[in-house]
């Protein structure tokens, strides 16, 4: 029997300051590489790790890096509480703690052969980013692929460099609420870009991540596109302490977000009382 | 304003006060600037059961003394005579109280003066072994308070007529083992303080203490003076007068209009015959006219009360304990006085109750109030008897003198 509450040591190998409150952390295991599953992945896109600092606790954070990468992982950390503040105080070379990956992730094999629409805003990008990396590796197995990404200002668009790379393989639709003078792209709501999407709604899946208001975009984007609730996947955010289905903090209705989630069919969570 | 008060306050005493010396006229005054809390007003309208909950908050250094003085006053008003177990446990609480307070004062506040340190924690670096002894004594006294009173500061277990909860035998046995282990530390303390270089001062002191059987601190019923002028506790208010002075938020007390000193030195002067065997040997070296020797007296008391605590616990274990809480008598007088010897001297609580148990009147006289007049007088003597000393030296000596009285200005402005 193992003490599943004790994390492993990891080392920060790179920190990118993405905005005032958001940093990207790249870390590697103190010893060895991350284990791959039989599909050759170190995690399933949509899964999360319990990332933390000794003595400060840990938080569930979605993995952003490519699931094919086994020498490091990347996460985006927004400074909101004790743990994320402690992470933000780390420097390259410092030790951090990791447990996981945990959760279900996207049902990626069922996405194959279908059009994929991914909607994201603000900090909701990590699980989507991993999913995109996954799709790009096997691009031929998917139909038309769209990323709709909205941010408050151009500076708030995360992972911009990677967006350029991704743009060579999938369709990217960017929009901001408040443009800077140099901004040449779309200004306004994500939903206004629906008209630029061409998919076969009967053979399409969609994913949604991001802050609460993005969820209302469902009504204006995914439903107008004709994608059924059953094929819309949502990543939920809940308080988590154990990450392994024991402590009861993350429950929603009948399920544990840490093991049954964080990815749910939209119609599944729609029925939950909380 | 703010700068003024923070800079001139006497450090390492309980509460806020400063010495004001008129160097031209060679006059010393003790200004007490603690804010008034008006406890005697706070108590009115509260219930009898709340009195001993509120009064410990007068002083966090001697809360047990206030707690028991209140309990005794209310019991007196309700015609309650507590059972022997209760009395033994309260006496045990008081031994813990004395050691707690004296250890804090001697090691943390007074000792640095005598060995040339700024603060007690420097001793931890210079002589960790000695400091360890002080900490062990602090620990054992805190444990007595935890075990009997429920907490080291502000008791939770005491009630009118007895205790809400009395300790079990096994926790008393645990205490006993701790006490036995720390016996050498208590003796060491008495030896250490016998060896210190106390400044010479003949202050011609009149010493005042409660007196009863033995070395009585919980149940003395006579206020006894070293000048053979005794009063019954019942007459405390007539004998001990309090005077309001415009420069102080604390009143200045006197005994039959004379300056008196209360506290450890006075207790040994009045009750010395009742000291435990080990402590008695050290009492001979006391100079009863030198207030600096109050520190030595406190060290001797640590040894005495340490011995007494062991004796009381052995008695409690041997005789067995009865946790019965005694109920009020029929037609009680509703007016009562409770007096104990707090670490700094005689402490008097008086309470008047209404039929429904609400307080209608409260009066509290604390030891430091009684000492303030004497502190000023001794400071004056120090000033007068050292005409050649420099201002700095005199200031240092005077602060040391104030500290030797172990004044609790917090208590004095209750």
């Amino acid at each position, binding site marked *: 029997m193992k003490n599943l509450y004790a994390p492993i040591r990891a080392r920060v190998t790179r920190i990118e300051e993405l905005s005032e409150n958001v940093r990207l952390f790249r870390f590697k295991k103190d010893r060895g590489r991350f284990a791959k599953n039989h599909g050759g992945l170190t995690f399933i896109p949509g899964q999360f790790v319990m990332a933390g600092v000794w003595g400060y606790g840990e938080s569930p954070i979605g993995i952003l890096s490519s699931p094919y990468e086994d020498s490091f992982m990347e996460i985006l950390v927004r400074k909101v509480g004790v743990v994320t503040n402690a992470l933000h105080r780390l420097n390259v070379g410092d030790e951090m703690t990791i447990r996981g990956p945990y959760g279900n992730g996207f049902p990626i094999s069922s996405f194959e052969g279908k059009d994929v629409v991914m909607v994201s805003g603000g900090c909701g990008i990590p699980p989507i980013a991993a999913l995109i990396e996954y799709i790009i590796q096997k691009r031929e197995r998917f139909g038309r692929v769209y990323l709709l990404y909205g941010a408050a200002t151009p500076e708030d668009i995360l992972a911009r460099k990677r967006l350029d790379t991704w743009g060579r393989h999938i369709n990217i639709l960017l929009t901001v609420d408040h443009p800077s003078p140099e901004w040449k792209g779309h200004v306004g709501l994500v939903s206004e870009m629906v008209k630029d999407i061409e998919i076969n709604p009967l053979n399409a899946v969609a994913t949604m991540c991001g802050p609460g208001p993005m969820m209302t975009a469902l009504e204006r984007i995914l439903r107008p596109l004709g994608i059924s609730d059953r094929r819309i996947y949502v990543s939920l955010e809940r308080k988590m302490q154990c990450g392994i289905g024991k402590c009861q903090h993350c429950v929603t209705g009948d399920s544990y977000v840490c093991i049954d989630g964080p990815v749910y069919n939209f119609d599944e969570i729609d029925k939950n009382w909380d | 304003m703010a700068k003024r008060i923070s800079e001139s306050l006497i450090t390492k005493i309980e*509460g806020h006060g400063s010495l004001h010396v008129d160097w031209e006229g060679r006059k010393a005054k003790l200004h007490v600037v603690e804010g008034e809390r008006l406890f005697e007003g706070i108590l009115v309208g509260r219930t009898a059961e709340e009195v001993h909950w509120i009064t410990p908050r007068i002083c966090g250094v001697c809360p047990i003394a206030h707690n028991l003085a209140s309990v005794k006053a209310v019991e007196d008003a309700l015609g309650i005579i507590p059972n022997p177990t209760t009395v033994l446990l309260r006496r045990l609480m008081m031994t813990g109280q004395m050691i707690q307070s004296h250890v804090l004062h001697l090691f943390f506040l007074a000792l640095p003066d005598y060995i040339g340190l700024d603060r007690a924690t420097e001793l931890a670096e210079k002589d960790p072994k000695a400091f360890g002894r002080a900490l062990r004594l602090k620990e054992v006294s805190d444990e007595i308070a935890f075990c009997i009173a429920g907490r080291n500061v502000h008791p939770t277990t005491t009630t009118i007529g007895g205790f809400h909860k009395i300790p079990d035998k096994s926790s008393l046995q645990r205490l006993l083992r701790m006490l036995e282990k720390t016996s050498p530390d208590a003796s060491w303390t008495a030896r250490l303080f016998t060896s210190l270089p106390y400044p010479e001062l003949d202050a011609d002191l009149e010493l005042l203490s409660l007196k009863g059987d033995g070395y009585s601190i919980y149940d003395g019923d006579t206020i006894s003076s070293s000048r053979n002028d005794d009063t019954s506790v019942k007459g405390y208010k007539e004998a001990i007068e309090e005077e309001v002075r415009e420069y102080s938020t604390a009143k200045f007390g006197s005994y039959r209009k004379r300056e008196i000193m209360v506290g450890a030195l006075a207790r040994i002067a009045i009750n010395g015959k009742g000291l435990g065997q080990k402590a008695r040997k050290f009492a001979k070296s006391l100079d009863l006219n030198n207030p600096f020797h109050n520190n030595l007296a406190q060290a001797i008391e640590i040894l005495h009360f340490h011995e007494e605590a062991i004796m009381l616990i052995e008695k409690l274990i041997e005789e067995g304990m009865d946790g019965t809480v005694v109920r009020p008598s029929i037609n009680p007088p509703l007016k009562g006085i409770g007096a104990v010897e707090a670490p700094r001297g005689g402490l008097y609580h008086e309470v008047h109750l209404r039929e429904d148990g609400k307080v209608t009147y409260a009066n509290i006289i604390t030891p430091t109030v009684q000492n303030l007049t004497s502190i000023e007088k001794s400071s004056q003597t120090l000033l007068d008897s050292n005409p050649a000393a420099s201002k700095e030296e005199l200031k240092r000596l005077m602060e040391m003198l104030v500290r030797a009285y172990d004044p609790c200005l917090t208590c004095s402005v209750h």
Partner: protein
Amino acid sequence: MQREAKKLKVGIFDFTDCEGCQVKLVSLRERLLALLERVEIVNWRLGQEKNRMDRFDLVLIEGCPITQDEIDLLKLLRERSTHLIGFGTCATMGGIPAIMDQKERAKWYNKIYGPQYKPRGIDSLPLTSYVKVDFLIHGCPVDENEIVRVMEELLSGKKPAYRGYSVCFQCKLAGNPCRLINGKPCLGPVTQGGCGAICVSGGSPCYGCFGIRDTAQIEGLLDILKGMADKEEIERYFTMFLRYTKEYNEIVRPFMERENG
């Protein structure tokens, strides 16, 4: 692990109070020495002779700012400190002195000191009535383990957290009979835990000295108390320590008024 390279500059100040919370600090004994390894105490009137009034990383304030001098010093300390922390119930909620308000105080000055006396005290209000306070370590007196917990959090750069649970947690662990079930008033359920339920364990009531906890269901408790105590008694419980809390003024007082009329 993250360590602060520089020692925090700490000041410990006391206003009008019983100083019992500082006694608790000394009662930390070995743990106090460990704490002193990590901080530099630049001002502590009770503990040391040499004191400075420069800038502080952390100021602990015990006691209630009753006099004008204390109020002025409090404001000065606020300006000069990064973290200002209330230490003990007198500082955090006004404490026992706050049983009386300004009007009652005026009456008692006269009775206790006589008509000639010029009072120094103004009113017994918590620190928060005058300045912004960064954290409140409640307790009459504070609890040793809570001091250590908050200090550990501060030293490791965390924002200290209030306890989310009520006194009832540790009260059940202690195996105490429930006062409320036995018809005796108790503020434990609405009071922040961390005290070890020490008063109830000793047989005394809980008067809420650890402060009202987050999202306390005060009206629910008042409904229970109503069944066992008269209005005056409920009032006495809530005014022992909690008179100047928002909850007392916004929930308890209106509840009492409704009950009256």
